[in-house]
């Protein structure tokens, strides 16, 4: 039992740490203030803790508050199947589906955050998120499953082990890119930030203050950090690499993915959902299906050993 709680603590700490790293990198990219901006996420968190919680006129308080708390919980739960070192907290025969299910549950939570406070901007933000979620769920699902297909297993540690000869990113570049893009879409961040856009005064976040805002913001960055770690595990060979010990390699790869994600994401404007959603349905879904087909043929040809 003691071992279990240590492991849980370790995974929570890893999730929060990765989230903090992502948030810090994001602030640096956003403000252009250099390394000084690295502490800004901590400052924002403290500021939120000092702040009063708000309420609005006639909200659905139960659903609203529950949803705010659910966002970081789901992000940390998705971290449970991400390999830390060469182990995962929760190793089941369906890890990859678990990761996906947590993101699906995030839909419900974010939509409720938009619905709960009974406010126009927040409601519009909630619906934008749902439209985005529906559109990016399938590409994300296919991208994740493609990695499982290559490994012949839905267990993340098996997927990492299957890449000892060749990283999956070589044969699955489309799935890799779609995975990262969909992670950004589910965290409504960067070019997919329309649900929290400035044109709707912050959208789903527009009515949040105090600890609730902190929970939601923390959940977003933890999800992004966990996705970066998952991308490193599923497509970049996890901890494999010369000279250095495995966990160091894995951390380096995760940091690299984070840097690339932040660098690209902050270079782009928000893509309006009515445009981006069509792209997801008409281009990304067929593209990820083709990617899965190619990988399936490679599996039959014995390319993955």
């Amino acid at each position: 039992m003691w071992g279990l709680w240590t492991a849980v603590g370790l995974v929570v700490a890893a999730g929060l740490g990765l989230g903090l790293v992502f948030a810090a990198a994001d602030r640096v990219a956003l403000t252009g203030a250099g390394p000084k901006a690295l502490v800004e996420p901590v400052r924002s968190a403290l500021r939120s803790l000092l702040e009063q919680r708000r309420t609005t006129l006639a909200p659905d308080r139960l659903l609203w508050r529950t949803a705010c708390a659910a966002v970081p919980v789901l992000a940390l739960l998705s971290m449970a199947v991400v390999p830390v070192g060469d182990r995962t907290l929760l190793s089941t025969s369906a890890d990859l589906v678990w990761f996906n299910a947590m993101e699906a549950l995030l839909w419900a939570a974010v939509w409720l955050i938009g619905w709960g406070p009974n406010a126009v901007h927040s409601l519009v933000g909630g619906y934008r998120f749902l439209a985005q979620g529906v559109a990016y769920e399938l590409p994300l699902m296919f991208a994740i499953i493609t990695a499982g297909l290559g490994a012949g297993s839905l267990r993340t540690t098996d997927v990492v082990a299957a890449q000892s000869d060749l990283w999956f990113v070589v044969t699955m570049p489309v799935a890799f890119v779609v995975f990262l893009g969909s992670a950004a879409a589910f965290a409504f961040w960067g070019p997919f930030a329309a649900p929290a856009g400035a044109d709707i005064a912050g959208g789903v976040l527009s009515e949040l203050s105090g600890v609730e805002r902190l929970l939601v913001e923390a959940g977003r960055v933890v999800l992004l950090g966990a996705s970066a770690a998952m991308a490193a595990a599923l497509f970049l060979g996890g901890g494999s690499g010369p000279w250095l010990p495995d966990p160091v390699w894995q951390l380096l790869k995760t940091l690299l993915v984070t840097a690339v994600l932040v660098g690209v994401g902050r270079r782009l404007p928000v893509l309006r959902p009515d445009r981006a959603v069509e792209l997801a349905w008409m281009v990304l879904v067929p593209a990820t299906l083709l990617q899965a087909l190619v990988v399936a043929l490679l599996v039959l040809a014995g390319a993955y050993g």
Partner: protein
Amino acid sequence: MDLTGRIRRWALGRPRVLVIDAPGGERFRWQLEDELDRRHWPLALSPADTDLALVLGRPGAQLAAAIELLWSQVPQPRHRQDIAADGDLPAQLDAASVALVDAANRTEPVQPGAQTQLGNLGPEPDDVDDEHAGHSGHEGHHMHHGGDVAGLAMADTAPDRDGLTLDVLRVALGPVLPGWPTGLVLTGSMQGDVLTGVELAWVDGSDDPNHGVLQATPQAVAMDQLARILLVAGWPTAAAAARRARRDLSGSHPQRAAQTQRAAARVASRVRGSRALRWSVQGIGSTDRGMTPAGSAHAAGDVWGGVRHWCDVAAGGEPVPVAGSPRSLTEASILLEGSELAAARLVVATMDLERPATRVETESTGV
């Protein structure tokens, strides 16, 4: 100083600022935003996001009432300050920051809360800057209860743009929103996020005879407009670059003129050359929807045409009025009819609206 106080001071060291530029404070807003950028104090997007509310210029009666309502939605700790145009700006911001920390140190009684204050505002409490709307009738066999809930009136159903009968929500956007001309109020009906029955009006005009006459070069004005568009379009890094360029353009450094021009041209070409932005906003607000072929060379009357126009002017080109860009509120409201909320925000941000110099009475705003 004790540790808690020190932590508190550090945590509030970069407060999020809601800038409210009342008539007469426009040019001064630029200086304020430059100073905020220099200090890395972020701009707040909504009352919930606000620590400091800074009021520039002299708000008229209606705008003052709207600010009051907005203020009632800002969570503690908070501080509101009128910024004097002739004062020392850094000193005023320092004072505001100290006052904010003081507010955090005081254990103030809990604020009345949005509910009571909103409830006292008369029949149309949803006519405020953002939200508190909702309340609808329901179709079919659902049970109907009473005419209002929590003091909010119920809405009806009406046929929508696509011929379905949907619930209609009466909404009002403005007079204070990020990237929105302060004082402008849009009232209309919303179904989903499609606006119909759009009416635009300015809240109380200003008595200031210089009001509306911006003492700046067209180039700097265009850069300001660009910064506003980019904020609404969701491109914060480019918006910050545009604000920096605006600062240099409006400053008087003759020895650095060439450098300033180059920087402005760089910002403009970055925005103009953004394929993602073009893809995202092309065709929005076009008077002939969907008729212009993609990538058309004409500056169509859409948001992308507006962006390109402002980029050209901001880069130092000739200020040619963009084809089909409305200047009056009536033209603008016709253009916004049937558009989505996001599209409407972008269109308004792109427009160069003429502000009335005289006082106008508006009855549509409940604030």
